[in-house]
């Protein structure tokens, strides 16, 4: 094969085009993945259903606890406010994870304190609801766990794969892992 200037230029052009295609593809793909994780709590996000279910469970626990606690109980007020945050359509991941952490803590406290109350002991129904709701809400925050797992998985793939490295070179950042990770 005759090595001419035009052939060399053509080969370089092909390589350049390949590089641009690879870079563009990487950036687009990884950016889309990143946005998906950052919007995991939006209406069509992956964790939206989980978020809503936790918010509703928290609101339901409020209903049960309110039958046995005074209106101005600090935990009751905190639970009510944070369940409202989860159900209000807020999409800020950190705010939602903070609210979720509060719900987990309050649910665990209720699981310990409410069964000591006489009124609670007299209601088998409310005891059953308390066990059910605090059991699911107090479980080491499934919302945070799921989100953290998604973020860690994304960061790992971004930093280890070739396309990920290219994307990072072209400006796609890793997602900060929430501080409340397990």
């Amino acid at each position, binding site marked *: 094969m005759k090595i001419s200037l035009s052939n060399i230029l053509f080969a370089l052009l092909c390589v350049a085009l390949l590089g641009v295609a690879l870079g563009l593809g990487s950036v687009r793909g990884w950016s889309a993945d990143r946005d998906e994780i950052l919007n995991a709590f939006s209406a069509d996000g992956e964790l939206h259903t989980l978020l*809503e279910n936790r918010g509703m469970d928290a609101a339901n626990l409020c209903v049960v606890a309110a039958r046995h606690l005074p209106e101005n109980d600090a935990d009751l007020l905190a639970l009510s406010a944070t369940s409202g945050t989860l159900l209000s359509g807020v999409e800020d991941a950190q705010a939602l994870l903070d609210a979720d952490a509060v719900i987990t803590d309050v649910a665990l406290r209720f699981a310990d304190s409410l069964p000591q109350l006489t009124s609670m002991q007299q209601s088998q129904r409310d005891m059953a609801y308390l066990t059910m709701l605090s059991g699911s809400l107090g479980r080491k925050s499934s919302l945070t766990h799921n989100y953290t797992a998604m973020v860690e998985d994304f960061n790992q793939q971004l930093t280890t794969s070739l396309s990920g490295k290219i994307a990072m070179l072209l400006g796609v950042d890793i997602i900060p892992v929430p501080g409340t990770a397990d």
Partner: protein
Amino acid sequence: MLKRILCLLMLCALLLCSAAQAEPRYPAQSGVTTDSAAVLSVKLLEDLRTLDKRLDKAGAPRLHIATVDFLDTADVQDYANALFTRWELADDDVLLLLCVGEERYAIAAGNGARRILPDTVLSKLMAGYLHEAFLGQQYDAAVSAFATGYVSEVCKACGVTVKVEDLFRSTSSGIFGNWAGSQKNTGASGDGESFLTREDKNSGFSLLKVILIVALLMLIFGAFRTGKKLRRPAGEDAPPPPPEAAPKPAQAEKPRYPVYFKPREKKPTPQYFKPRNPK
């Protein structure tokens, strides 16, 4: 002007809030009774299925019952209406929703059913038959009483006959007591009283009550009188024996009624006056 703008802003905020509110979790329909809170007995579920067949056969509005644990922040009436729509219930169907965890209940009915059973009647059915037992966590009794009252109203409105005497037996003793109590507590008047009369006729409750009261009175007074009479021969410490087993030799073989009435016949008045006369 400022007020109008503020009102408009508040309206917008309310609309946004309602739009942002999460949709509650609704149970999937499972037959005529969807007991997702698992508070109804198997026997009652069977009875409700039987009742549904009878109502359907009679061409009367069918009664659907749903129990849920919580409303997931929704209003109880909105939840009932949404469930009615989701389950695609017919125009002449009635849905009774019981939210166990929040101690609330509501009825959703199609337009056809409302023509037969107006809202006032449905409200009275809930207040009169359901309220007290439901709040007392007697869910079987509450649903049984409501279903019985519902059938009574439907039969009256549609001019049909639906037999319920053989249904809801296991809870019937509690139903009417609760129901009667709730009637008193809710202070139902006018139609409420007619509910009571109608129910009494259907169930035979007042007749039974009268018989029981009469029997009780007879027992008390009979025992009292017999005890008084028998105390002398039986001794001071011995408890008064039952009237049938009276050990009094003169009256042991005789039936009870002569014994009961005898003291009246020979009243002590002549003896009373005899000593006075010599004076």
